[in-house]
């Protein structure tokens, strides 16, 4: 089948490009993380390697490769090596279902700008993200070090706790789109009908959970230096450590892309149909791909912004927020969304949900206050 082969080649090239973009963005995230940190602290940041320090990631990579690749004597050697590999693998697999753009026709081959459009798209993301904790857990356990193990346990329990609230906030999205396919979710949001308008509470829940899932500040307890030395990667050095750190940045970018897909219209941008009419659908689709990556990078900036603003939570606060804060809130959100679908006014229901939530909290607060005085 000639056609299948063409599509296969095109998809392979596209996946390669996505791969390269992801890795490049992850590499430069390390640079921008340091730059943003510096700017927020009124400093300049790395500026010695090349103009504005633009070659810093290269220098870091060279440093990482040159370091001694140390494997502790009492570690489980194979699992010790498997840990960072798993982390990296799962981090890179997630991008397969993210729809980067609409259908394009290049050199007579028509294909979607998406790795694979499966009908369980968002479940795939969840499955892979859940697997991602294995990389940390395996690495932490194989190190044969109590601090590593504690970090790994923290990562595992934190990810499990926050996946629940994350899943519940996705359910509200699924109720609106009626499909698990990421492509279908994006298509229901075209022409400015972004889910953020209908799901403000869901977005806040998802954002907070994404921070926890990526092990980013304020939820970076698995690698909490003050308590656990380096956390799960205490024993790691050289490029194995580099893989763990790299996987975190890839996860950041991918979770940004997923958030853009679910809540911010994916590859949609204002004036999409106008561009499609003027320059053709190909150009519009490629600009859409740029728009999605731009949105994802905006989220990466938010991740960094929060990191350099907030201190780390205590572990009981983290668990309390996850189990007693976000899960009831996400259930409430599902009910509000259901009501919105029932009265066919999802945006109004979303706003009403926020109002009811605040009124409820305020009344509850006022009532509980009175009791204490009396």
């Amino acid at each position: 089948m000639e056609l299948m082969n063409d599509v296969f080649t095109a998809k392979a090239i596209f996946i390669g490009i996505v791969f390269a973009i992801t890795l490049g963005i992850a590499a430069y995230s390390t640079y921008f993380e340091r730059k943003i940190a510096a700017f927020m602290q009124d400093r300049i940041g790395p500026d010695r390697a090349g103009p504005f320090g633009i070659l810093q990631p290269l220098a870091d990579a060279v440093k990482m490769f040159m370091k001694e690749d140390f494997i502790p004597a009492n570690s489980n050697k194979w699992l010790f090596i498997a840990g960072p590999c798993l982390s990296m693998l799962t981090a890179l697999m997630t991008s397969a279902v993210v729809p980067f753009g609409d259908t394009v026709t290049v050199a007579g081959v028509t294909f979607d700008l998406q790795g694979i459009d499966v009908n369980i798209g968002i479940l795939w993301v969840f499955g892979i993200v859940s697997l991602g904790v294995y990389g940390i857990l395996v690495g932490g356990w194989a190190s044969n070090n109590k601090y590593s193990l504690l970090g790994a346990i923290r990562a595992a329990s934190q990810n499990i706790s926050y996946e629940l609230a994350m899943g519940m906030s996705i359910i509200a999205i699924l109720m609106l789109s009626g499909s698990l396919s990421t492509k279908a979710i994006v298509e229901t949001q075209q022409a400015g009908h972004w889910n953020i308008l209908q799901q403000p509470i869901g977005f806040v829940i998802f954002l907070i959970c994404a921070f926890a899932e990526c092990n980013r500040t304020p939820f970076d307890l698995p690698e909490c230096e003050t308590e656990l030395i380096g956390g799960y990667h205490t024993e790691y050095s050289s490029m194995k450590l580099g893989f763990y750190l790299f996987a975190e940045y890839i996860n950041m970018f991918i979770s940004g892309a997923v958030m853009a897909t679910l809540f911010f219209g994916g590859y949609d941008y204002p004036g999409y149909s106008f561009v499609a009419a003027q320059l053709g659908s190909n150009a519009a689709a490629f600009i859409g791909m740029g728009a999605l990556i731009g949105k994802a990078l905006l989220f990466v900036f938010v991740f960094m912004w929060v990191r350099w603003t907030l201190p780390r939570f205590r572990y009981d606060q983290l668990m309390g927020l996850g189990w007693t804060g976000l899960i009831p809130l996400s259930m409430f959100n599902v009910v509000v969304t259901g009501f919105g679908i029932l009265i066919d006014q999802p945006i109004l229901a979303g706003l009403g949900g926020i109002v009811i939530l605040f009124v409820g909290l305020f009344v509850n607060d006022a009532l509980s206050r009175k009791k204490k005085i009396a």
Partner: protein
Amino acid sequence: MKLSNKTKVLEQGEMTLAERMYLPAIVGGMATTLKHFFSKPVTIRYPEQQRYLGPIYRGHHILKKDEQGAERCTACGLCAVACPAEAISMVAEERKKGEENLYREEKYAKVYEINMLRCIFCGLCEEACPKEAIFLRHDKMVPVFSTRDEVIYGKDKLVENMDQRYLRDGWK
């Protein structure tokens, strides 16, 4: 009884609803960091940019000459006595006939050495000197050394160069 009325007893009441929700405080904190994101960095890129350290900064030592270009130092040894780190050593020599334009007094330091590893840049030599010969410059620092041979500074590095005379703020 309290000694002064300056002590304030802080009473932390129960957190309000807004405080318990964290989000208003988080948004406020993020606004603060964003404000700093766009403000000017305070960094001074040190080797290229240098901050003015004031007219009395105690840096590199210098053995001053007078206006005629004759060395002021008379090798009295008061600086060496004053030096708490015992960094200064010298060998005195009598001035020969015909050397009047080189040395101002009848006795001069043939060898004058400062061990820069010992020196603590306290400036007591400068205070002790009766001839206003030794100073610690405010505009130049002792460079970093990598081997021990470079540590002892002799007269070749210390005596003032008449082409680039050292002037401190406030001097004529």
